[in-house]
């Protein structure tokens, strides 16, 4: 068994690298090292201190530096970036730019203006106001039937309840109770392009997603530029803004475009195909400026379309008069999109919300 100080120190090193290592785990780790040979130290720690695949790379790194002797059987990490604790980089929280008191009329008219103003043209103060307005938008996901059941007026007989009631009437099932499948909102998955010019729109969209679906946890947010980052864990906390800034910073050198095809593939391979996109409403927000192979975009969009319930593509450029989907990535993606919208201002986002809501009812093509 390794020394308690050493075990605790290793736990601390993992914690500071971002792993969720509480004391109980460290105790289990220490006990485990007493049960295996000393050259199995690596595996004893890996079984007891790690609980997800994307932590393995961090574990390997910390293990190597902490215990020096790195074992041969270590495996390279996966393409999915590790979630790290992000500390205050980036802009102020939306609430902090509270505007001073002003007359009702002025407030009302500025709301009117804001609703139509493109996010890209907004000043930081206006964006903060937009974010507050966004919080009022409701986003209802289309529903699907689950295997859970509830009492209903008609449907199939509910034997358990029927029997219970039958006992009241001398074991004679006079009153038959019926039950039916419950309906549940579908998962909504946002894939947000955070490169260059798209950042302002994506930021608004993620706040929209956050505010609108807050009550319901069935949604996922990914950011992409040159690679894919899962933002969902950050959405639970105040770290959201910092996480977004970080994702944006990672692609700052790609002003000209995005690796949409590669990012879509990373999403589908790592998350979508295993089940995250299955039966979901997937919202992609991007201008469709692909720096890679547009063929790949088409291919991956076809995959996505087959998995997802509905695919919505939001492209702010669509708002410009006379817009034609000429960007090669956009043109390749379009045949596999159910709803194509601009989403560049509040009014348009409200429209997107309605389109998503009705996505269960009809296949709208704009």
């Amino acid at each position, binding site marked *: 068994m390794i020394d308690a100080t050493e075990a605790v120190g290793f736990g601390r090193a993992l914690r500071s690298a971002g792993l969720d290592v509480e004391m109980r785990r460290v105790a289990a780790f220490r006990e485990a090292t007493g049960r*295996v040979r000393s050259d*199995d130290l690596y595996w004893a720690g890996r079984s007891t201190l790690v*609980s997800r695949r994307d932590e393995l790379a961090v574990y390997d790194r910390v293990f190597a530096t902490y215990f020096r002797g790195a074992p041969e059987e270590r495996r390279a990490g996966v393409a999915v970036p590790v979630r790290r604790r992000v500390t205050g980089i980036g802009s102020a929280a939306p609430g902090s730019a509270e505007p001073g008191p002003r007359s009702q009329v002025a407030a009302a008219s500025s709301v009117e203006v804001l609703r139509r103003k493109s996010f890209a043209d907004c000043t930081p103060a206006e964006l903060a106001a937009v974010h507050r307005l966004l919080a009022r938008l409701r986003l209802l996901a289309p529903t699907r039937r689950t295997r859970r059941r509830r009492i209903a007026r008609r449907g199939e007989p509910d034997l358990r309840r029927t029997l219970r009631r039958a006992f009241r009437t001398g074991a004679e099932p006079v009153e038959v109770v019926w039950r039916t499948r419950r309906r549940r909102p579908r998962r909504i998955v946002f894939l947000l392009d955070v490169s260059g010019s798209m950042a302002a729109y994506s930021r608004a969209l993620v706040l929209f997603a956050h505010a609108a679906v807050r009550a319901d946890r069935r949604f996922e947010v990914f950011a992409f530029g040159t690679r894919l980052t899962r933002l969902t864990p950050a959405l639970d906390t105040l770290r959201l803004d910092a996480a977004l800034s970080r994702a944006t910073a990672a692609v700052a050198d790609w002003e000209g475009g995005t690796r949409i095809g590669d990012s879509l593939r990373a999403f589908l*391979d790592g998350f979508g195909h295993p089940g995250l996109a299955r039966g979901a409403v997937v919202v992609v927000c991007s201008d469709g400026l692909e720096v890679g192979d547009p063929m790949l975009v088409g291919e991956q969009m076809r995959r996505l379309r087959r998995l997802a319930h509905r695919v919505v593509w939001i492209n702010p450029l669509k708002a410009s008069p006379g817009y034609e989907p000429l960007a090669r990535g956009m043109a390749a993606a379009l045949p596999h999109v159910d709803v194509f919208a601009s989403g560049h201002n509040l009014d348009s986002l409200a429209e997107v919300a309605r389109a998503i809501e009705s996505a269960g009812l009809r296949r709208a093509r704009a």
Partner: protein
Amino acid sequence: MTRFEDPESLAVALRSESYLADHGLSVALYLALTMGRPLLLEGEPGVGKTEVARALARVLDARLIRLQCYEGIDAAQAIYEWDYARQLLYARLLQSGELNAEAAIHRLYDEPFLQERPLLAAIRAGSRAVLLVDELDRADDEFEAFLLEALSDFAVTIPELGTVRSDDGSSPVVILTSNRTRELHDALKRRCFYHWIDFPSEEREAEIVMLHVPEAGERLSRSVASSIARLRGLELVKPPGAAEAIDWAGALSRLGFDEVTEAGAEATLGLAIKNRDDLDVVTARLSEIAR
């Protein structure tokens, strides 16, 4: 249940049940067994997550109880359900005086009418069972919370019967698998040990194939293993797992091939590749795969 002195002897025992565990997995299993903790297994589909539990059950001479999770699974499907039709029949008999009412009335909610579901069965069996909670990520959050409770004290309370636990107070060995379609709850993960099962190395894959398809022989097994390794290098939507390698080797050997040739691969590719897009990719590069 500490019949094994070290991870190696556990690995040897598993091997005798046709399961080749790599070193990391046998350490994780050994620790889960000796420290009495559930083991959460993750890995690509087809790396043998479910198979681990089967082999372990045979090694421990325990009953394998499998709880396949799906969306909407609830207590009635996981723990117990009353047999309503029989209860009703019984109640009718009571009423028509064909049974002694005094004695019989208490039996209405008793053993004969209880339909045991996997979780209850496993808890009752205690250490005589290996409980496999398969694809937990498919169940919803509520079920997970409830499973956590059952796994913490290995007891289930049935209102009409009281608290049920195993006769000897022991708890079953618990293996959980997940395909990572959603993040499992932290509280549950904290209770579990964890192991990520990678695709086997080419060497080990050949061994696995030989173990499961002895008639394939060493030459074909090695050839299949290296072709499978090349297939995994192609960035397919669904890379072939060990199960596919075994099926593929079986088919090739039945057709009389003693290595993966282009013609043989073409005729049997559907056993290794199970996605239309992947088939196109692979067919175009068949000569590289069958080498």
